[in-house]
């Protein structure tokens, strides 16, 4: 296919080597200069994005430069590096103007004074999915402009499970049929004990983390880890383990391993697992998670978008970039094309509804709740994971473990 396949055209290798050397020298010098170059500059925009988003934003940047003459530079970093470094780099004047990130960073970044709130014109605001705007808001203010939402659904191996289950009982029946621990094959698995992926099961019967006021703000003193729904959900998981239908510990690595080897019938996971499954030659389908006692499971909704450095001198250019380049149907469609997750921008989402995989995920998360973006989630995750660990290794009953966890959180948050 590719006429320039390495090793076929004589001289190609040599040139490639030379180019590599030049690249290495450039990379090293960039390393020294990077702190100088990435500093926020008056009159130019700098964006930090991760490897999947960088090409997208480079494209948007190119168009914007053509349109206005303003130079926009996109730097590629890992998600973790962006979330960590922006906190220290921005006050020193070395941060970017915009970062591309996830909505659950917002609480921590606001606490640290790193990001600024954003004012969007009313008519533009109304074109975004309201759940995504709620996710990007913190203490009543908007801190990010979303472009996509994502969450988990039921991935199933079409060779093992021809027809996805509609109800939890059907799921159990299928699981009993195909589970065979002797050959390491399981009908249904979900990452355990870390409760992100299993949350739909925990939430279906009414489990939640923080209570909510009617306007969507969180009630930090109403902790739902020991709510009846959460305990019932955890009991369902506990039961699967006790019955020997599911292992008591499935770290992420084991989960993806079983999925890509074709040894998992059904897995609750997100769109990020599809390429992994396909790399193992598994024929995967996506369906909404089966209802439990007629109730819809509610996965966490994660929202991606851009956030503004509070120290940036370029507020006008940023606002212009957001209103006239980023939050437009054309750009949002381009973003979808390169990163196919349900768009947060309604006009773009309406136009992309013919993709079955994306539709299944969109349906699954349409019942979801935004992952809380408060910085207190840091403690919640660790305490909650501890409780799930003790449930899954059969040390404590779901009731005891979750009661203790809720108690610990109440103590932590009250002082």
């Amino acid at each position, binding site marked *: 296919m590719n006429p320039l396949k390495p090793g076929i055209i004589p001289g190609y290798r040599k040139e490639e080597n030379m180019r590599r050397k030049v690249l290495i020298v450039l990379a090293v010098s960039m390393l020294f200069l990077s702190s100088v170059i990435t500093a926020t500059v008056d009159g130019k925009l700098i964006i930090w994005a991760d490897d999947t988003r960088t090409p997208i934003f480079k494209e948007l940047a190119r168009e914007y430069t053509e349109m*206005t003459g303003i130079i926009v530079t996109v730097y590629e970093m890992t998600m973790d590096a962006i979330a960590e470094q922006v906190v220290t780099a921005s006050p020193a004047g070395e941060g970017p103007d915009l970062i591309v990130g996830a909505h659950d960073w917002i609480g921590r970044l606001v606490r640290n*004074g790193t990001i600024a709130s954003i004012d969007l014109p009313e008519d533009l605001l109304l074109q975004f999915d309201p759940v995504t705007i709620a996710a990007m808001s913190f203490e009543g203010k908007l801190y990010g402009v979303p472009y996509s939402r994502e969450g988990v659904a039921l991935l199933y191996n079409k060779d093992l499970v021809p027809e996805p289950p509609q109800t939890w009982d059907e799921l159990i029946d299928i699981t009993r049929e195909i589970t065979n621990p002797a050959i390491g094959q399981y009908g249904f698995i979900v990452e355990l004990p870390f409760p992100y992926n299993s949350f739909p099961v925990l939430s279906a019967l009414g489990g939640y983390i923080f209570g909510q006021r009617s306007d969507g703000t969180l009630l930090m003193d109403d902790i739902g880890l020991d709510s009846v729904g959460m305990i019932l959900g955890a009991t369902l998981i506990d039961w699967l383990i006790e019955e020997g239908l599911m292992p008591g510990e499935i770290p992420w690595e*084991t989960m993806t391993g079983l999925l890509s080897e074709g040894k998992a019938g059904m897995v609750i996971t997100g769109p990020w697992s599809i390429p992994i499954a396909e790399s193992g030659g598994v024929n995967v389908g996506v369906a909404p998670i089966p209802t439990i006692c007629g109730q819809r499971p509610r996965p966490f909704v994660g929202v991606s978008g851009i956030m503004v450095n509070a120290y940036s001198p370029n507020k*006008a250019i940023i*606002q212009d970039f957001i209103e*006239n380049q980023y939050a437009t149907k054309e750009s949002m469609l381009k973003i979808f094309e390169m990163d196919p997750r349900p768009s947060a921008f309604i006009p773009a989402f309406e136009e992309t509804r013919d993709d079955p995989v994306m539709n299944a995920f969109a349906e699954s998360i349409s019942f979801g709740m935004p992952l809380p973006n408060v910085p*207190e989630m840091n403690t919640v995750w660790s305490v909650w994971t501890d409780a799930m660990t003790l449930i899954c290794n059969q040390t404590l009953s779901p009731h005891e473990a979750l009661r203790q966890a809720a108690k610990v959180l109440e103590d932590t948050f009250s002082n």
Partner: protein
Amino acid sequence: MEKVMERRLLRFLVKITLISLFNALAIFACVFFAISGDLYLSTAGVVMLVAVNSIAFKKKSYPLKYLLPGLFFLTAMVVIPIFYNVYLSLTNYSTGHVIGKNDAINLFLNREYLRPDAKKYSFKAYGNDSDIVLLLLKSDEELLVDMNGEIHDPVEFDIVDCDLDGTPDKIGQWKAMEASKIVSKISLLQKLRIPYGNGWLRLSTLREFRQYEHQYVYDEATDTLTDLKTGKTYRPEKARFISSDGDVLDPGWTEYVGLQNYLRIINTEKYRKPFFGVFIWTIEWSLFTVLISFAIGLFLAIMLNDSKLRFRKLYRSLLIVPYAMPSFISLLVWRYGFYSGEFGFFNRMLKNLAGISIPWLDTVFWARFSVLLTNIWLTFPYMMLVSLGALQAIPPHLLEAAKIDGAGSWQKFRKVTFPLVIVTLAPLLIGSFATTFNNFTVIWLLTEGRPVTGIGDVAGATDILISYAYKLAFSGREGSEMALSAAVSVVIFAIVVTISIISFRRTRVLEDVANEI
């Protein structure tokens, strides 16, 4: 003679060129750092500059030439981090407290808000070929503004509108400017603040000015911040602005808190309780690792040192494999390949052979056993290598003499080999102890400190002090607790230093014994 002179001249020239190059770069760097406000880096640069030049040209400081690079890296990589750590442990650096107080106040002063009925203006710029002189802002009213933000009366100017479209083509002597020219002046336009109402008009997108209002005023005399929107007053308390009804503003700031973090470790049960347990386990972990792997290593070394053994080279190469393989890979293989629950190699074997399974990483005892097993496997080749070296250094006549005196092989080992080996290796064993004491990688890649001992506990059953400190750094209610973690690191540092000093004293006694032999 002439040749020597020539060579000297050449050497001198090369030296001068190199030093001048270095000086040029260093001076550039110092000036650059000074301009960009990094005074510490700039001062450090000046010190380096003086040090390098005086060492290069002073005859007396000749030996320093060879020490300087080492000293430089020692300072940069060890001394400065230690001091920084101590400094950090005396502050409140944590989520919400990452910037200075002045930075925080500036952030509040720069906060502005847009009223729902805020005015929006389209604008047109007028000027000569290169500079903008006047701006005409248009909404329901028209404002004529200069680049200092002053509003002018249009009557002052002669306004010409040739095509009668309502937008003037010329104001006074200044012509309407094209959009591309305006963009090239964007940084000036962005800075423009036109006082208006309770706030200002500023460029909000490339096409519009909008009316913003200040949200806060700061009163330096009383050190209070007032919200103009709600009228609430905020006072500083615990490095944050807080109102009388308990409303807290983000962000807070970093400040010096003295020994508060150390007191927190002592006074908070959540931190104190695990500390001693973790400390004891860390000692056990280091001692068992060093002693057992040394015993295995020495045993294998003695075997390999026996010239009667065939294929010695092959065995030696094979035994070094655990040490030569990158531990990042082997640790993950142990964790996911061997230990991991029902899927691990060990449990599959055990199930097939004996029908049992062992909770390798899931109970306190087995998890500690497993991390020790893996770490001993990783360490014994090193012990074997150094023991081989030490065995080679034992004078053969000593062993011969012992044999003549009628010593058996156990006595030979007990009375001759072991004392001599231990004298040589004791410092290495102490070093090994200190390394294992702080061996974060092995614990983190194998168990991350797990299994969990209780819900909400910071430390797990296999956490050693350093991984406990790392977890503490991220265990805050809202994220990072860097300062607290720094305090724990300082305590660990003190412990390791004390142990090392005592042990080295002891070995000096051993050495004296050896000298007497």
